């Protein structure tokens, strides 16, 4: 596809929302990492995040030339590559913050579990697409579940409960769009309840603690609960209009932990107030709306499945991350798409947006009613 058609068929609303979120994110990363204070490395985070945002945009534009349908044929190889990568993390990765998630490749640490989100969406969409005519019975879904379960367990083992749950969220989105019946959900729920104690045993102690702390933040005020309390103070103290950029005491004085990554939304809440948080959340809603619109208008089922999987992932990320900073979700290491610092996460999200744009570009002209 030549450049003119690409530009003509771009979903500019989606692109605008994503770029706005990325720009807000970079600004807040600057605030959270004290860009306003003199220090040797004060531009480091902002530079890296901006650089990768630009790289990714360029990459997206190039990738738009290729039809996303090519991915369907690659899905099996991607799936296997994903498993290898996750195993590699287990054996060669280095640990940080209680989890073994990174692999060092040259100068960059990458977080394979981030990229495995893309692969899971692609591979699972292809896997389901092949079986679309045979998914009427409850049991016909079990190969699909098994297909997700293997990487799910590998990620859990890292341990990265957040990413594992992202897989589950993607699966859920695809189940919904594939007509998974209500009574099937009831049955699945039954199985879930029965196997819950088993899952509890698989969890690491610190994960159990986080869940307990979620139920009672006062339980461990100096540990996991401390983060949530500080985050809620940060958001709440922003009130309607916020304390202003660089003026959030919670984030500037480092009361807020991980303020440039997982808790970036609390910085937004403190410095930009209710007006800021509402605008940010509405921008995400625009992304989701455009994503579902693309799913609705895709010319093939693979495109619909891809778009739905991508949207499901974004919804889950925003819900879990914002919910965590606001004290209504447990603490899991789920970053906020486009805003949290982290080049792996940013790249993943941008690539997924590239996929959405790609599907949109090759759609039939129908609008979401």
């Amino acid at each position, binding site marked *: 596809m030549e450049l003119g058609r690409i530009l003509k068929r771009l979903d500019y609303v989606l692109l605008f929302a994503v770029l706005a979120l990325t720009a807000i994110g970079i600004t807040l990363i600057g605030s959270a990492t004290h860009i306003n204070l003199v220090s040797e490395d004060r531009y480091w985070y902002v530079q890296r995040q901006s650089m990768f945002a630009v790289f990714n945009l360029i990459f997206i534009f190039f990738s738009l030339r290729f039809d996303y349908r090519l991915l369907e044929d690659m899905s099996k190889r991607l799936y296997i590559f994903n498993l290898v990568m996750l195993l590699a993390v287990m054996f060669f990765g280095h640990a940080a913050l209680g989890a073994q998630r990174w692999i060092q490749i040259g100068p960059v640490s990458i977080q394979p579990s981030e990229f495995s989100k893309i692969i899971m969406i692609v591979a699972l969409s292809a896997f389901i697409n092949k079986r679309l005519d045979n998914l009427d019975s409850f049991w016909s879904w079990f190969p699909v579940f098994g297909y997700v379960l293997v990487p799910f367990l590998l990620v859990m083992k890292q341990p990265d409960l957040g990413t594992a749950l992202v897989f589950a969220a993607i699966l859920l989105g695809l189940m919904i769009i594939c007509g998974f019946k209500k009574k099937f959900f009831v049955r699945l729920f039954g199985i879930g309840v029965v196997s819950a104690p088993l899952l509890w045993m698989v969890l690491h102690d610190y994960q159990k603690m986080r869940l307990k702390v979620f139920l009672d933040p006062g339980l461990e*005020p100096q540990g996991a609960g401390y983060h949530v309390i*500080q985050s809620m103070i940060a958001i709440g103290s922003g009130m309607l209009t916020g304390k202003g950029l660089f003026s959030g*005491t*919670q984030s500037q004085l480092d009361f807020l932990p991980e303020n440039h990554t997982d808790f970036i939304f609390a910085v937004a809440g403190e410095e930009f107030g209710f007006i800021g948080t509402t605008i940010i959340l509405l921008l995400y809603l625009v992304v989701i*709306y455009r994503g*579902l619109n693309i799913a609705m208008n895709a010319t093939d089922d693979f495109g619909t499945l891809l778009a739905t999987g991508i*949207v499901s992932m974004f919804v889950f990320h925003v819900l879990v991350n914002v919910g965590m900073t606001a004290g209504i979700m447990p603490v899991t290491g789920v970053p906020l798409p486009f805003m949290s610092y982290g080049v792996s996460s940013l790249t993943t999200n941008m690539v997924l947006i590239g996929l959405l744009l790609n599907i949109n570009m090759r759609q039939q002209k129908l609008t979401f009613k």
Partner: protein
Amino acid sequence: MLNKKYAYRLELLMIASMVIFAVLIGRMAYLQLYQGDYYYRLSEGNRVRAVKILAPRGIIYDCNGEELVKNEPGFVVSLLRTNKKPDMVVINKLAGIIEVSPEQILEKIKQNEDSYEPIRIKSNLSAAMVTKIEERSEELPGILLELQSIRKYVNNELAVHVLGYVGEVSEYEISKGKNTELKVGSIVGKFGLERYYDNYLRGTDGSYREEVDVAGRVVQTLDELPPKPGQGLVLTVDAKLQREAEKIVDEHLKYLRSSGFAPKANAAAIVAIDPRNGAIKALVSRPGFNPNLFVNGISSKDWQAINDNPFDPMSNKVISGEYPPGSTFKIVTGSAALETGKVTPQEMIFDSGKHWLIPMGNAEGEALGWLNFHKALAASDNVYFYEMGNRVGIDVLKKYAALFGFGKTTGIDLFGENEGIIASPEYKMKVFDEDWYLGDTFNAAIGQGFNLATPIQLAVMLSAVANNGDIYKPHLVEKIVNDDGSVVKEIKPEKIGRLPVSAETLELLQSALKAVAQEGGTAAQMANLSVPVAGKTGTAENPHGKDHGLFVGYAPADNPNLVVVAVIDQGGFGSVSAAPIVQRIFEYVFPPKQPAIVNTQKKQ
């Protein structure tokens, strides 16, 4: 096509997403709008915590620079503020260590709910408590040991009614409008000079601000405002004389009780004052108590012991004890008669043992025969002064009593001074609803009946007589000094009035009072002192028990520089109970002349 077949499912996903975002925005509205103020306050409190640096209270010195009250370092245990509920496990552990009930700790926490400063739980911990808290600090998160200066009364009971004591401000006091600028638990003067001069002694607490997080961990210290130490007091009181006076009083009270002369002689008031300026040199009230007991909150056992003592150790009887002045009042009656010309110094009046109008006589019924003023006062004849009362009348007597300082406070720099009572028909009518009789005038004339005076009033009255008529305000503080010793304020002798008597009358009074302590006077035993003494005995009728004994005296009689007043509650005759105390104090101040040892040594 999926998106045709299950288009409604995509719509469902959109609706579900909108619900999720509505919940998130709703949560933001709750945190930022509904609870925004609360979280804003938390973030402010989070950021900066003001930590008080307690100002050391001013030191109190005697007139020779001896430290009477000082500060000692002590430990106080505090609880850090956090925005969570207090941990009962920690509180119970702490309660066990510092021997305070958990309820009391919770009460303290409740009282300081609005504060972000650490809450002081208990001051002046014992060394054992400090060690235990330090050893178990890991089990006691949020519990903090702070250094605090503790008030120390160097000589325990010595001069307690002068010095007073300090204690924590109670919520009740603040609610009553006292010390409203202070927080519950701040240390203030509660009694004595500690209370009267609290504003000078207290100083201004300093503070520093530190950035802390919610768990109380210090992020950084911001700025420091050093405390302004309290200003010190230099007293007029002479600790050596005070010590001696207390020793003499205690010994004599013990003697009075053990000899059977006055078994209930437990309470007494003694004050020594310089008549030339009103400077109080010693002040003793009995029984006393140890002010150190009060510094950190008195134990209920100690409090009960003080409270149950029928002789009320907490009252300063020199300023609040009201006694009939007895024969010491004859100075007033005599002055009134002389000044109004109702009698001349030379006029002789016959004491037959009883007055001719009303059969009232001397205490022991003795008859002293013909008497002039000088002899009558020296011998303390009742009949003569009944007649003086009869001649001047109660209204003039009342007027003179007021001019001699009775019936109103002296203005000494202590709280709790009483006014006493001047006998008058109006008073009798008001309180007893009875008419005034001549007998009442007779009683009033010799200081019995309705007259009541505080020992300090007697001291001021006698000082004026000794000082040729000038009345000075009694005071305990000579100057207020900064902690570097520089003088903030000098308290100058304050002349507050003049006796309404002529120089001749004064001379006569002085000479008669001198005769009291000579051969033939009621305090003849004082004739042997190294300096001549003037004085007056008194025995105040006490309807509730044995009479109170009084003695007021000054020395040297010709050029007085010390007035001593002693009142022994239920001590019996003043000459036996009170005069020996005054005598021994004079003996201490004016020691008998030693043989010239230096000269004999030279000769050898």
